């Protein structure tokens, strides 16, 4: 690392520490007004007396505050249970809203300067560090990836992974503890949607920033490779516009939140009643959203996947893919390439696909018949199981938290039902393949090592067989890192894909003979 890179990293770390420190800034005081503003009127009546001891008491941390709050609500609910008045029980989650509303002090008053001192500084530092890469001559620069503990599952990697996991657990399950962070992005949220920032707005902002900043890193790292550049600009664009700005503007216009590039079954709650209801009650635009959402996966997926392969979505458009290809790029080499991993992957990812289809069928059954149960199975419990295990734990906590441990596509590879679906189309009906160039492979292993989907690309390349795999997201990195120019992502007539290795590789004039191969030299 040169001095500029070190400076950048230093600024980033300072910004990061300030950001963590903002969690301790400010105090929490519950007032009557806060309760009135944030509770449903009936809940206000129910809770007000029990919460009285908390009122106007100032807490130094969100922990003490939330302990008391949770205990109080618990007590109230227990009371109802004893009195057999379970219908009165309060199941709404007020923790985040009350914590945020109760917070005051420097974090609320100085949120803009604090934003710049934390997130802003971290961005500037990261960009300085990244721009220093321009000093190197363009070309593949993977030096020291396996010497660096961040990128080789060393202690730094484990720390980063732990941080990401904790971050996701908090965002999903305990947002009240990071209410302070949402103040930092409040001005942005108000500017876009006119509403104060929720934890999801905070998450969306950080997500988009990560894709943009690390996208710039990709653009510089691959400035000799236009495929990588175009693809990276594409994911940056789709995240910034479709997933972030447009979605927020819709909220400002009191229209349903909608990410026009997301689709079922990745967007697993697309067919949930509340979502269908919100679309069908939003006029023409709502109807358009409904039709668009259905057309995307019924027509868009087969058509575009036939023409260009899975990559049109997974490494050009998708938000999960976008994060994986930018923030996750430094970790791509950590994917497991073993045959075992491939077997596990196939069971898991197709299992999730079956799960989401069954769940959606149940949900639609409930929607149309009004019955929540088929036999003993309740469509509500199935959807909450899916939402918790797959929607939150798998795609978020594991999917991103495990970047530094298992590579950047853990979710896409083992869990994403949409990837499973597109993959089936790519495998059986697509013009896409990765061509291997005659006999030029030297079996060096760069391609396999840097394949984020854990495809053993070399296994195909060294036997002159095209890479045709359901999981390949067409990131093109295998082709970029190959030092001998062996791999090329191409579209052509589906029948021209070389699915069986040639008996004799190009470059050898030995006569072909059609021996029946006795070898188990095959992976599938």
């Amino acid at each position, binding site marked *: 690392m040169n001095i500029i890179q070190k400076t950048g990293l230093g600024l980033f770390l300072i910004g990061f520490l300030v950001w963590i420190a903002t969690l301790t800034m400010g105090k929490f005081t519950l007032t009557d007004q806060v309760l009135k503003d944030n509770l449903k009127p009936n809940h206000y009546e129910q809770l007000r007396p029990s919460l009285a001891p908390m009122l106007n008491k100032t807490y130094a941390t969100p922990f003490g505050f939330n302990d008391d709050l949770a205990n109080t609500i618990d007590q109230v609910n227990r009371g109802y249970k004893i009195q057999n008045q379970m219908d009165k029980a309060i199941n709404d989650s007020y923790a985040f809203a009350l914590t945020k509303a109760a917070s005051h002090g420097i974090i609320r008053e100085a949120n803009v300067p604090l934003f710049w001192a934390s997130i802003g500084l971290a961005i500037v530092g990261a960009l300085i560090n990244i721009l220093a890469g321009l000093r190197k001559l363009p070309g593949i620069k993977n030096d020291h990836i396996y010497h660096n503990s961040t990128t080789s599952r060393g202690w730094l990697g484990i720390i980063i992974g732990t941080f990401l996991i904790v971050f996701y657990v908090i965002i999903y399950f305990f947002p009240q503890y990071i209410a302070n962070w949402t103040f930092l992005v409040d001005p942005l949220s108000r500017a876009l949607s006119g509403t104060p920032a929720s934890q999801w707005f905070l998450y969306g902002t950080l997500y988009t920033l990560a894709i943009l900043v690390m996208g710039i890193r990709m653009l510089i790292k691959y400035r000799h490779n236009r495929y990588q550049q175009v693809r990276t600009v594409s994911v940056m664009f789709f995240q910034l516009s479709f997933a972030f700005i447009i979605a927020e503007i819709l909220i400002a216009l009191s229209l349903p939140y909608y990410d026009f590039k997301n689709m079922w079954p990745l967007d697993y709650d697309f067919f949930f009643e509340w979502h269908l209801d919100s679309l069908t009650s939003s006029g023409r635009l709502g109807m358009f959203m409904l039709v668009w959402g259905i057309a995307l996966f019924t027509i868009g997926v087969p058509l575009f996947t036939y023409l260009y392969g899975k990559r049109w979505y997974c490494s050009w458009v998708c938000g999960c893919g976008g994060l994986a290809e930018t923030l996750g790029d430094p970790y791509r080499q950590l994917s497991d390439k073993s045959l075992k991993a491939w077997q596990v992957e196939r069971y898991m990812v197709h299992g999730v696909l079956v799960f989401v289809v069954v769940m959606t069928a149940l949900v639609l059954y409930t929607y149309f018949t009004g019955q929540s149960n088929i036999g003993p199975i309740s469509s509500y419990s199935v959807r909450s199981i899916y939402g918790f295990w797959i929607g939150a734990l798998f795609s978020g906590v594991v999917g991103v938290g495990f970047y530094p441990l298992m590579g950047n596509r853990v979710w896409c590879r083992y869990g994403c039902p949409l990837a499973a679906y597109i993959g089936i189309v790519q495998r059986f009906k697509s013009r896409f393949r990765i061509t291997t160039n005659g006999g030029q492979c030297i079996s060096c292993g760069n391609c396999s090592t840097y394949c984020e989907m854990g495809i053993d690309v070399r296994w195909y390349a060294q036997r002159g067989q095209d890479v045709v795999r359901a999981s390949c997201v067409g990131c093109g990195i295998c082709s970029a890192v190959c030092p001998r120019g062996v791999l090329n992502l191409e579209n052509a007539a589906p029948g021209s894909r070389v699915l069986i290795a040639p008996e004799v590789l190009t470059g050898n004039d030995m006569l072909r003979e059609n021996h029946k191969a006795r*070898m188990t030299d095959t992976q599938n």
Partner: protein
Amino acid sequence: MKHIVIVGNGISGITAARHIRKHSDHRITVISGETDYFFSRTALMYIYMGHMKYEHTKPYEDYFWEKNRIELKKAWVNHIDFEQKRLLLDGDASLTYDVLILAVGSEPNRFGWPGQDLEGVQGLYSYQDLEKLEVYTKGIRRGVIVGGGLIGVEMAEMLLSRGIEVTLLVREQSYWNHVLPAEESALVSRHIQAHHVDLRPGTELAEIRPDSSGKRVGSIVTNKGESIECQFVCLAVGVHPRVEWMAETPLETDRGILVNEYFETNLPDVYAIGDCAQHRQPPAGRKAIEQIWYTGRIMGETLARTICGTRTPYTPGIFFNSAKFFDIEYQTYGEVAVPLPADTETFFWEHSNGRTALRINHKSDAGAVVGFNAMGLRLRHEVCERWIKEERSIRYAMEHLRDIHFDPEFFRRHEEEIVQTYNSTHPEHVVVPRKKNSFLSRLFS
């Protein structure tokens, strides 16, 4: 069922083993003293630079060998008793064979320079060399690389990745100019220098001198009398077949193990392939000893046929090779001889960026293309090979340049500029390149 013993688990020995298994049920044993498993020697540089770990360079997962009943044995063979068909291994073990394949590879050349046995002086060939390299280059300031070939450049890139300054001594007046025509050689030289390598053309090593300890290298002296302080010297002046250890046996060797076109040595049931084989009668246009990955593989494939009952002569196709000089990929197909033969003409195009170039050599009379050199461009192997075999003319090549292109999508295409260059130098027959097929017609192709 015979017991086939292969000495050497490099690309040639392993390819032979895999293909013998494909075609037969013979018992197969592969012995090597270097590593337990086959790994890609060509990737040694990437291990040193931290792009990969040793595990990543193994082309097959470890379960593969047992599954395919290829027995692996890690041991050095010290002596071969060809009469008894017996190998003597380390620690007095021995092993008998019915058929023996020698695929023992090469070892780096050392030309008897004074001081060449000092600590910190080495070549780069084996896994053990890599381990030594780790030790000797730790924390040093400058390394001198002797030899302007492919390994020399790889070594320069490796040392630079660790922040070590590099002096590269090249005997020739320009980098690798006995293989690369002047323009390509200049292009690569410029690129090497752009990476801040102290490139010294026309300079040879005269002597290596120790440091104050008397044991480790401290400096070198060039044939021009110049002294260069350094803590490490890499000798990258080529390799030679690893055959000395078999000198006292009836096996006939010259520089390498002498073989005919079926890889048969002078002894019954003994074959030699890969780097260590020396063809008594090399195929037309080929060298007697070919020290490249691809030919090792082709030899392994071919010999497997013979051993499994279909006697098959060595017929490598159109020559091809590739390398990478820092960031510039190089591919070559067919014959691009230096100097240019009298009956051959050459067409050369270089991009104004100075990093991208294409050369097509063709016969003077009918214009049949005979060879391609590409720098910073990827060409399609299959098409280059076909054009050379079918003796397509340079005109045809210019018209169909699109077909040899193998660069990734969205890369800037150079066909038009290349054809323009051709047209401006050959105004007597102007070429109009074939149009790209329309999107729709490609869609339904």
